[in-house]
């Protein structure tokens, strides 16, 4: 147990230089992009004198050389000050934390859906190898794997929201209804269905295929023959022996993909008007609200590091051969 705590502590220490590098790279990359907040504000105002632009830049600190800006930014971040979003007129930290909740709800639901059903479907396909069950699952997986995310989202809205009217088209809750308690939870869940399905479909397909292949690979291992020689039933062999071994690659893959999930959520949150980090990132990108964008990137990086840590710990629980070092 103390080994585990030491491991977690060590990972936190290792995370500091990684985060620092991410901050610096993000800052420099965004500086490479043309345009800044002053351009956008001036553009929206319709006209602006060069003097006014210069004044705006001075106000945001954009007139100083890039290394100075970088040093100032890093210095502020080290004090946990992520700056101020001129567009939303709020501190970045508060804005980002507000949006974190919805994104987490969407992400966790998506992961659970994708991994859970992916494992189940992969298991069904592998145990009924080359039967109609396997074929149907494999074809469905292939189709969802090959379909673009935004298109799935739009089609789901067309069919289930507009034509059938079963689910709301966008948003996270019916704000005007002022639900509280369980009613609010149900309301959010109702709004969650379509975005979660859209986002999870691609990963679901991926995990189904991976799980199927992994089950088949494990079924050919020597220990399965041993289990047969012991007189175990096929059912017991599948569930007690093969399943757990087959899960390992799926968990590894899921851990790696949580990071890309955040990227995928930008599209889905935008399509469904989900008030999460992805949507915020999308907006702030067009507003050249770089402070906010960097805040979001930073939080995403922290999220990825935490998820990786959780996956590593989960892995040691699943596989006794892996030790925390």
């Amino acid at each position, binding site marked *: 147990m103390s080994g585990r705590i*030491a491991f977690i502590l*060590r990972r936190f*220490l*290792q995370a500091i230089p990684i985060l620092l590098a991410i901050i610096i790279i993000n800052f420099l990359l965004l500086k490479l992009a043309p345009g800044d907040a002053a351009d956008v504000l001036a553009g929206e105002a319709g006209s602006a004198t060069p003097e006014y632009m210069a004044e705006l830049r001075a106000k945001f600190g954009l007139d100083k050389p890039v290394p100075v800006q970088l040093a100032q930014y890093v210095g502020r971040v080290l004090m946990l000050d992520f700056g101020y979003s001129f567009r939303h007129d709020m501190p970045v930290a508060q804005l980002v934390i507000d949006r974190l909740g919805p994104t987490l709800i969407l992400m966790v639901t998506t992961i659970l859906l994708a991994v859970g059903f992916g494992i189940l479907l992969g298991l069904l396909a592998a145990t009924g190898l080359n039967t109609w069950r396997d074929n149907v699952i494999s074809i469905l997986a292939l189709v969802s794997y090959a379909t673009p995310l935004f298109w799935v989202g739009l089609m789901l809205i067309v069919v289930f929201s507009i034509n059938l009217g079963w689910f709301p088209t966008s948003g996270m809750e019916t704000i005007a209804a002022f639900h509280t308690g369980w009613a609010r939870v149900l309301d959010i869940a109702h709004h969650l269905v379509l975005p979660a399905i859209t986002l999870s479909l691609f990963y679901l397909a991926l995990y189904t295929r991976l799980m199927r292949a992994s089950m088949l690979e494990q079924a050919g*291992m*020597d*220990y399965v*023959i*041993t*289990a*047969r*020689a*012991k*007189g*175990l*039933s096929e059912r*017991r062999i599948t569930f*007690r*022996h093969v399943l*757990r*071994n087959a899960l390992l690659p799926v968990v590894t893959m899921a851990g790696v993909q949580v990071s890309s999930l955040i990227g995928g959520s930008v599209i889905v949150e935008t399509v469904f008007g989900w008030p999460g980090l992805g949507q915020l990132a999308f907006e702030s990108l067009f507003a050249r609200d770089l402070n906010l964008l960097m805040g979001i990137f930073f939080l995403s990086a922290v999220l990825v590091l935490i998820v990786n840590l959780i996956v590593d710990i989960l892995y040691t629980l*699943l*596989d*006794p*051969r892996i030790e925390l*070092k």
Partner: protein
Amino acid sequence: MTAPLVDIRNLHVALPDGADRPYAVEDLSMTLNAGEIVCVVGESGSGKSLTARAMMGLLPEPRVRASAGQIIFGGRDLLQLPKHERRLLCGEQLSMIFQEPMTALNPLMTVGRQIEEVLIVHTSLSAAERMERVLALLAEVHLPDPPRIAASYPHQLSGGQRQRAMIAMALIMDPKVLVADEPTTALDVTTQAQILKLIRELQHLHGTGVMFITHDFGVVAEVADRILVMQHGKVVETGTADQILNRPEAPYTRALIRAIPSLTPRSRTPIEGVPILKVEDLDKTYRQSGLLAKGREVHAAKDVSFTLKRGETIGIVGESGSGKSTVARMIVRLLQPDGGRIDLHGIDLAPLSKRQLKPHRRRVQMVFQDPYASLNPRRKIGEIICEGPVANGVPKSKAMARARELLGLVGLKPEVAERFPHEFSGGQRQRIGLARALAMDPEVLVADEPVSALDVSVQAQVLELLAEIRDRLGLSVVFITHDLRVAAQVCDTIVVMSKGEVVEHGTLAEVFADPKHAYTRELLASIPGKDWQIPELAEAGAV
């Protein structure tokens, strides 16, 4: 005489269409009585393992299936039994142990739990009673501290411990028949001796009938009551252990037995050459280091010293983990030694950088253990052999001509240079590996277990070829092996290693006749079939 425990009559195991032969096992008949060990001996591809699988109902059906014949056990034909009845016999009446206990155990389940599973399926004992039985059996197979072993995962045990746990798992229901498929092949020789002793002891105690599959006549001589020799799926000879081992009739059996390396050291005139390679105080430590955690250290080699004379063959023998391969790899400088000297004709290779080493690389060449993994499957044989010389500046056409010449030297046709490695058998690949090493015109050849992956008859041919080439080209050889029989046939001097250290060093005759160190004595005492005097068989013209 009572009816036999198992009576196999005219068993045929069919292979799928398009295989190189229609039957893996053809018309095999044999009996197994209670309390006896019947050894099924054969080289790879003889069908011995599939015979064992057929008996247990573990053939990879429907591709490979028992297509004809009967396996009578307890008055019933196992091949005709409904699936679930057959399954319930497995583990209870018929049990099996496997070659590789690491892969044959589920890596994610504790050993105790895996043994307990047999009881869950076949008995209605309570959890506490089951645990008691498991612990009792772990003690019976002489595992220390049964509760700890039961709570361990397979990777936490040594190879011998794992195989003991497998045996416990197979014997927990006190089965009438035990099928052992090469149960000691993956083990070190001293562990092998212990496991063989254990199998014999338990078999005697419980009156189990054992079907023992092996390729190793030494092991056969240790355990067999009766012997069945197989070749290409057919039984070529069957009889009592004494008959087959000492008075074999069938030409194939005679050829097999003749190929077994004798333990009597072969007399060679003592080598009086000048020292060519001096290894002094070679050290290698593997460290596992962490940022905050304390690193673990393994001394793979510690103060290893020996001298190799021109034309001499020095054998480095030891078990897995003794550091013999580490030493071999340091001499070829595939590994960087931590300390010590590798003096080749007055030049110390140990501290040289990659660039400095380049002109000397040629002079020490290696032949690898695994003839399948050590040849690049995407390159033609000729290219593989040429690669070294070409990298050292020899023109391509000249190197290719030399490659063809070398292929002839190792007993292959020069035309094979145009073919790919997968077209060759293990023995042929090892010849190619040898040609590859020779292409560099080395002075010292380091052979790391060059014959341990080969069948015994092929092994004999490769050893002969190696000796012939050594004498013809005046090579000096460092020969790494775990097999003392092989060492007895090829080496002049022997270095015995254990846990990274040299425990004994001397001429072959000295070490074999009068081992000084306790470990050497144990090693020699563990050689399977050491008491069996291999008969002098005249070479039958018909073989």
